[in-house]
């Protein structure tokens, strides 16, 4: 390999494509300095929101450019796909990364918005830090979605992890928060170690860090060493399994979700999880996907392991949630089950007539974003008013804040996968995919887990509508109210017209152009 070509440097024109990331970093530095002089700290929150939305604007603009360029031909008469590849594909701006970045930025913006109403000065003394640390965290997630090289992937992963360690422990005076942060640091460290270990095997067998080069290396000679490949893939899956909180790697989730400030819980549940999924997609489709040769079915085994992990996460998550009486822990375990649902399209791969895995995944992720952030926003409001997050604190919510209770019903129905909500269609599309690829057992596990989950989701509904208390009305802060209603309306909208969103994704995204990293030596 020619070393000079591989070490392409970042040119100014390339840097312009990174505008969304630059904006986040610039806002972060600016706010860190400004924080020293600003008397009103809430302003930091609004400026953070502005930074996130500006970045979102650039991502959306880039995505429309990408879609417009499709079908055009360049000077040589070649079809262009408009995908931007920087530094020998170590950073890619394609449909895959752009769609996921939109999810991350929207989730982060909603997190900031719900923080504005519920974060108390007495609870978090460093509110400036709280807000501007979200920016590098999102930036890390975005780097994870865009990377085509293990080095940049890992940098993104650590940027996201380390900032979220701080955010989880930011309620410095609360023992629970500190404990959660400590647990998160330890498990996060283990996860990073496992990921690095798996990556080192891939590097060892192919001598490359670029995913495209690794794919080539595996095709050429890697498949002769299936044992080493198994070790590499299983360690990677285990390490990233911790990040997405899929059972049996989920034990940290309940404690950390409970200890973290509620908006940060939402951030962990959507952005951290989603970013780790992005990495799994990118790595698996560039490595394990090519690791089969006659008699050595490594690819099939890896995809089967992903499905088994999915089944375990769904069943264990739903079953363990049955015995939870804390709303945030409940959401953590529901997140475990949801990680399972999202693993299904990943594990189905391309089989029979099925190739729509990414479309199914990203649709479910969007629905999951709305229902989880919405539900946690409600939990945050209740937690602020009641002082605890027990399921019992929801008692009689219908009488104390009727519209919030109705919105919560929408989120819970969506989480339970009942129509007409985004969650229902998310699950339906995944189910259809499972049936198309003839993996009937995973479809059966999915519906079984959904039925189990009815019990605890409807348990919350029972508290809200069928129990009564003498407690006073719950005051919903305006910003939380906005988050709750945005999420509820979008959840129902996805349930009534799910078609266009999925249609857009499936007609633009292709596995060949978006997931495969094309390494040109």
């Amino acid at each position, binding site marked *: 390999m020619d070393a000079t070509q591989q070490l392409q440097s970042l040119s100014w024109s390339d840097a312009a494509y990174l505008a969304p990331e630059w904006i986040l970093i610039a806002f972060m530095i600016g706010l860190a300095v400004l924080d020293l002089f600003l008397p009103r700290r809430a302003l930091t929150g609004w400026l953070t929101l502005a930074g996130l939305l500006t970045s979102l604007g650039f991502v959306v603009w880039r995505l429309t450019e990408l879609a417009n360029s499709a079908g055009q031909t360049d000077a040589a008469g070649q079809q262009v796909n408009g995908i931007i590849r920087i530094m020998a594909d170590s950073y890619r701006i394609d449909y895959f990364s752009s769609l996921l970045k939109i999810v991350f930025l929207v989730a982060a913006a909603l997190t900031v918005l719900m923080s504005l109403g519920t974060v108390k000065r007495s609870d978090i003394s460093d509110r400036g830090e709280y807000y501007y640390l979200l920016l590098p965290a999102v930036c890390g997630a975005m780097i994870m979605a865009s990377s085509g090289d293990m080095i940049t992937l890992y940098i993104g992963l650590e940027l996201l992890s380390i900032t979220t360690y701080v955010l989880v422990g930011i309620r410095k005076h609360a023992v629970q928060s500190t404990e959660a942060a400590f647990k998160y640091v330890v498990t996060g460290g283990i996860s990073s170690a496992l990921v690095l270990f798996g990556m080192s095997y891939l590097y060892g067998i192919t001598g490359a860090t670029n995913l495209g080069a690794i794919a080539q290396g595996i095709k050429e000679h890697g498949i002769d060493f299936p044992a080493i490949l198994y070790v590499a893939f299983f360690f990677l899956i285990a390490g990233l399994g911790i990040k997405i909180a899929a059972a049996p790697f989920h034990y940290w989730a309940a404690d950390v979700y409970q200890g973290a400030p509620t908006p940060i819980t939402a951030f962990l549940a959507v952005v951290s999880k989603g970013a780790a999924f992005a990495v799994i997609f990118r790595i698996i489709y560039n490595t394990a996907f090519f690791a089969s040769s006659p008699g050595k079915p490594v690819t099939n085994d890896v995809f089967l392991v992903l499905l088994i992990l999915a089944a375990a996460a769904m069943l264990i998550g739903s079953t363990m949630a049955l015995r939870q009486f804390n709303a945030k822990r409940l959401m953590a375990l529901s997140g475990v089950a949801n990680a399972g649902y999202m693993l299904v399209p990943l594990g189905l791969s391309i089989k029979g007539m099925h190739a729509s895995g990414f479309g199914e995944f990203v649709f479910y992720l969007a629905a999951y974003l709305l229902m989880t952030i919405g539900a946690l926003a409600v939990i945050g409001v209740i937690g602020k008013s009641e002082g605890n997050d027990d399921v019992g604190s929801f008692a009689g919510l219908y009488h104390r804040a009727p519209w919030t209770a109705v919105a919560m019903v929408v989120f819970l129905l969506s989480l339970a996968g*009942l*129509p007409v909500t985004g969650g229902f269609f998310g699950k339906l599309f995944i189910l259809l995919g499972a049936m198309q690829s003839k993996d009937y057992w995973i479809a059966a596990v999915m519906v079984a887990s959904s039925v189990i989950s009815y019990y605890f989701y409807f348990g919350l509904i029972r508290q809200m509508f069928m129990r009564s208390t003498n407690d006073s009305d719950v005051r919903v802060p305006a910003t939380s109210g906005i988050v709750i209603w945005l999420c509820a309306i979008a959840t129902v909208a996805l349930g009534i017209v799910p078609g266009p969103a999925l249609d857009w994704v499936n007609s633009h995204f292709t596995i060949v152009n978006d997931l495969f990293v094309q390494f040109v030596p």
Partner: protein
Amino acid sequence: MPADLPILSLITFSPLLGLLVLLFLPKHRSRWLKVTAITATLLPLLLSFWLYADYDGVKGGKPYEEQATWISTSLNKEAVGEVSSYTFEMQYHLGVDGLSMPLLLLTTIVGVMAALASVHIKKRWKAFYIWFLLLEVGMLGVFLARDVFLFFVFFEMTLIPMFFLIGIWGYMNREQAANKFLIYNGIGSAIMLLAFVFLVATAGFRAEQLPEQQQTHLSYSGSYDVIGANLADPNAYVNLSPEQTQGTDNPLYLSERMHWVIFLLLLIAFGIKLPIFPFHTWMLKVHAEAPPSVVMIHSGVLLKMGAYGLLRFGVFMFPAQTKDWATVLAILGVVNILYGAVLALVQKEFKLVLAYSSISHMGIVLLGIASLNEIGLHGAVIQLVSHGLISALLFLLVGSIYERTGSTELKDLGGLARSMPFLSGILLAAGMASLGLPGLSGFVGEFLSLLGLFDSMRIITAIAVLGVILTAVYVLRSVLGITFGALPERLAAIRDVRLVEAVPMIALLAFIVLIGIYPAVLTLPMQHGFDSLLRQLSDKAGR
């Protein structure tokens, strides 16, 4: 009727109009709320009568259909190669035929009567009627939907309102009953969804080729018509076995075994709702704990959705499997009849007598289905409508009795004929209808079902007739016990029913008598409803 009027959509969604008005009414104005809700249930009733009147005119002609694409989303084409489109489609498709027409009428009638009976509801009227109207939309949609996913959406739309109606307005153990209802029905719908997705991913597949443009359109469709036609067509992809395709892999092929798997999934899914014997425990709880007006809906309409689903999806789509299992269905039916009847005989609570009687009567529907001939199938549908009306009437009476006496224990009740002659008279008539007195609707349903089954399974029919005798015993035991005998001291001063309660009683009884003496009101629209099924069955037998 104007040709472009979307009458079916109007029927289905007209209760929502009332719901909108309810939202803007203050929640303590109980009278306004009640009047609005009752008016809202009258809309679909009038529209469905209009439809019925018009439907008779198009006998055998093109039935009513309304169709629009709800979801059409492309799928990733990378697995199927060069095609011009590869999509997944869901239709908003409503239709009415001989099978859905009688059940639609049943729903709208019972809907109004239950809304009237809800005057006994004591608290949170606004929320009650909002859920009630949503429930009605769901039920109407179930009987009209012609797309499997649309059917599923409406089916689930009945689940959630029922959960609230039982859990908030029920008796002592209401939350437990609501939970049991939710879990059992949740399992049922989950199995149903699995079967539906299975069908869509195989039999729902269509490949259309436009030769002049060299275009191929592939699609998965949830349409009932597409799935049904593909299953019946020996040349559809779903029926091309590896031998027929010369060994090329056909990912859409459904083997004989898979047909059975789907048929059994559907049988269990709808069997829970029906309910078929081992899956019946949840409905006892609901009968006992839900408020009477909700039980009117539950026993009168929701149980019928199970039978309707079994007919529409199990029997119509898998006639061969049904034929092979006709004896099993008949045996399940007889078990239901006898089990229900024997246990109804020993109950001490009137509501539970009625609950077990429902199990027994739904067994007769299974017998009618198992006969697989026109007489028996007509009998099954008439039995559905008839039992819907009778049990609605009985629970209407239960509501009025409980309102006055505060109890439904048989030992607490007696001699009501003296203080409430009108109510007792209606109760007696309803009891007679339930035990199958000729001239009332119960007789027609039972008689036709048994007559149809007698053709093919004489011994089973003979055993089933035993159940009819038992029915007479338990109905007379409880009804006579309530109306005659000594009037307990504390019940001496109770008043007979008010006008608002009497109206639905008379109306329901009138329909029961009407079907009893002139069953053609139901059989006329049904005339061609089973033609295609019977043709398929005779084709199978001929081959």
